[in-house]
């Protein structure tokens, strides 16, 4: 049932992240350790994101983490040296809204789509990561294009709240080894999609979301009474009410999909009512209310190549990213796609072509999503202590003629083979 995919991006979904180190320790298994010994990438043009460009430098990686970065770092004694030969190195890219690992084939392929559910009474509790298939063919296909982490989100539960997303490493390992953070976000819908889920009106969608948050808050305050059936009935069941608690406590953000300027402001209002951390998914008309979004410090996850004027987004423009950034809004760039989440860098390149500052653009797929999802102390930049997600590019990463020559996740060099490459090799000559 997923709509993240081919065609026009009509249904959404959404991800986010938490701040508590305790929660991380409890919920997030460490990504895999690198081979023993130090890996050195030498002679590299390094874009650390968190600091100025290092025109010629070395990166040392040990035990899955970056241990040193700089122009004067020595690779002597490293167990494995990769000579970048002047090529550009960036942090691995983070895709912030996808269904990689939970949808293998989009349509008419029974048993391959665990990314959404028909209305069953479940909503916030729907944890799509429990269905994550590390052997999905989509993982290598995405990884070889320099995407190293992905926020895997539900595409629909039948309710206003879609459920929880998880940030994963695209290493192809099973849960929990591949989990970077889970849950990392709660996803909900307002706007046109919210309206259709709530009976046909945007206003009803607001009401349903408010009801869910009110019930969850009341439940938290009166758990015992509820257990003894001495509390009014709630619109949501126990699992959903529990799942919303990290949102109310501010541990994970609430990502609301909306596009129309008035819906974005409605999302800001409802987030304010409950003091939850808001992230906007989509925000095609974000530029029209960019000042308000900046003032409320609301990050937006946008797909820059959105400019078709639908009634939900008549103001959609390819300049959305540039205009939001100029207004001071934290922007994260996403494909909102699964099979072609690998085109993340095409989204970024076009955002630059339509006015976004290139450094800001790089940040929008590295450090900005790391901040928004609460893992900036682990990912998103090339600094000592960070997990070593690194990509060596044959040229400008945002040019489509450029290849991701080497992809490293948590210190481990990833294989270049994909099912698609194997098909190519099989048919390279016709027999």
């Amino acid at each position: 049932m997923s709509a993240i995919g081919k065609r026009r991006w009509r249904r959404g979904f959404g991800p986010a992240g938490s701040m508590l180190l305790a929660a991380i320790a409890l919920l997030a298994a460490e990504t895999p350790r690198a081979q023993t010994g130090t890996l050195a990438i030498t002679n590299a043009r390094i874009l650390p994101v968190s600091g100025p460009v290092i025109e010629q430098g070395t990166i040392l990686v040990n035990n899955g983490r970056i241990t040193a970065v700089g122009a004067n770092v020595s690779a002597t004694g490293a167990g494995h040296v990769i000579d970048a030969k002047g090529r550009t190195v960036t942090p691995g890219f983070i895709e912030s809204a996808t269904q990689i690992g939970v949808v293998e084939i989009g349509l008419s392929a029974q048993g391959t789509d665990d990314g959404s559910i028909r209305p069953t009474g479940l909503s916030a509790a729907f944890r799509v990561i429990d269905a994550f298939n590390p052997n999905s063919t989509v993982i290598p296909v995405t990884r070889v294009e320099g995407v190293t982490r992905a926020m895997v989100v539900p595409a629909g539960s039948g309710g206003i709240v879609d459920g929880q997303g998880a940030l994963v490493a695209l290493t192809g390992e099973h849960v929990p080894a591949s989990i970077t953070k889970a849950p990392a976000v709660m996803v909900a819908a307002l706007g046109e999609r919210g309206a259709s889920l709530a009976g046909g009106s945007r206003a009803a969608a607001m009401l349903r979301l408010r009801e869910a948050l009110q019930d969850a808050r009341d439940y938290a305050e009166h758990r015992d009474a509820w257990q003894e059936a001495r509390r009014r009935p709630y619109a949501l069941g126990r699992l959903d009410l529990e799942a919303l608690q990290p949102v109310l406590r501010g541990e994970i953000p609430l990502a609301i999909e909306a596009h129309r300027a008035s819906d974005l402001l409605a999302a800001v209002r409802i987030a304010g009512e409950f003091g939850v951390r808001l992230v906007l998914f989509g925000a095609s008309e974000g530029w029209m209310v960019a000042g308000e979004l900046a003032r409320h410090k609301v990050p937006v996850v946008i797909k820059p190549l959105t400019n078709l004027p639908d009634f939900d987004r008549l103001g959609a423009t390819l300049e959305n990213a540039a205009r939001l950034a100029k207004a001071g809004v934290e922007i994260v760039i996403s494909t909102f796609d699964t099979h072609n989440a690998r085109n993340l860098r095409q989204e970024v390149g076009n955002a630059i072509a339509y006015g976004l500052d290139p450094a800001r653009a790089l940040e929008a797929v590295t450090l900005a999503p790391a901040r928004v999802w609460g893992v900036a102390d682990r990912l998103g930049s090339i600094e000592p202590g960070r997990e070593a997600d690194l990509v060596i590019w044959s040229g400008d990463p945002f040019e489509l003629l450029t290849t991701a020559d080497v992809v490293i996740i948590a210190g481990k060099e990833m294989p270049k083979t994909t099912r698609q490459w194997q098909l190519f090799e099989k048919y390279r000559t016709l027999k």
Partner: protein
Amino acid sequence: MQLRSWLGRMALAVVAILMAGDPIAGQRPRARTAAQEDPWASTYTPRASRPTLIRNATILTAAGPVIEKGDLLLRDGKVAAVGTVDNPPADALVIDAAGKWVTPGLIDTHSHLGVYPSPGIESLSDGNEMTNPNTAEVRAEDSVWPQDPQFGLALAGGITTLQILPGSANLFGGRGVTLKNVPGRTVQDMKFPGAPYGLKMACGENPKRVYGSRNSSPATRMGNVAGYRRAWQQATEYREKWRRWRENGSDEKERPERNLQLETLAAVLDGEILVHNHCYRADEMATMIDIAKEFGYRISSFHHAVEAYKVRDLLAAGNVCASMWADWWGFKLEAFDGITQNIGLVHQAGACAIVHSDDPSGIQRLNQEAAKAIRAAAEGGITIDRADAIRWLTINPAKALGIDKLTGSLEPGKGADVVIWSGDPFSTYSRAEQVFIDGALMYDRHDPATHPQRDFTLGILPEVSR
């Protein structure tokens, strides 16, 4: 080229009958000249233009190697000269294009602009007549909404010509129409003069899913094939009936009944309508080639052709084009074996490779899709020059649409459909700066007055630069 031979003759006969006795025609006593006898004929006229000399550009002509620091002269709506122009007309507008690149206008063989417009709502959803597996009688041009704002967005991406096709729910979806990407009040104002109609056919999952789910035929791939063969057999007999009637003196009293569905298929058998066949899987493309052989028609292009690389030898041998995406895959099982080297392998095999969009967003960036295909090919050891890759977006689609003598390359005498790019068209950062159609400047990125405003977007919001 308004379907001259068989269908053209028949249309003339029918017009004569209508004019004589049809009550509706009688209410419109408009005198018709011979040229106006086809009420559906193109009413497109090139916009006024002055001679234009583009100087010092890197030119990809789609007809030869790259020309560095080259000149291109447009005059009277045609390409007048390419290479070095020493004595330009005195009244020529001179554009210094140093550092810029020039290509033919881009051509998309597969679009649904106007039939699936923006806004994408039910009221405007006019692309798929999903009521019968054979709707060869419907025509996309009768659904095209000329006010679709997507046309203007595609123009800003360098698209000068595009084929609008019906959807793929049916075995025979109906006629496609080739348009100039110009504003018009009617679809006829946009119709590419001299372009043949297309016939949309569809293989595989879509027809069997749509009709199978209604418990009607086709519900399987074998049902699909039976449906094609049944229709072609009927068309063969229909065509034969008309042929005999004409040979026997065309006696009005004996005139066979006209069947719009079979008329379209018969025109395919006459080679006047070109088949555009939605087909993903290699084995199904081979099957469709066999059906074409059985009934004596030609397939102009497979569309999507996600597994074209597996049968690229058959495509080359049969002179069948493949209109492909750079990287769409996996959204259904018949797209699961999509590989990014598809276009490069088809090209390398000497077959006619085309980059198509089938998408209102992708059509704005066909050049970027080509860049992805160049790179994937290179990763597989297949080197493709820009001068060759540009053919995927220009002369090859022109060939598939039957308009390659009119447009698709920068050669003297051809229509002056031209794009000036801010830089290498295969760079993500390059944008179409100026777009000419038949020598007239239709889009200038730096001149908002030229940015096409469709009625729908007029006044609906404050100024939005898309």
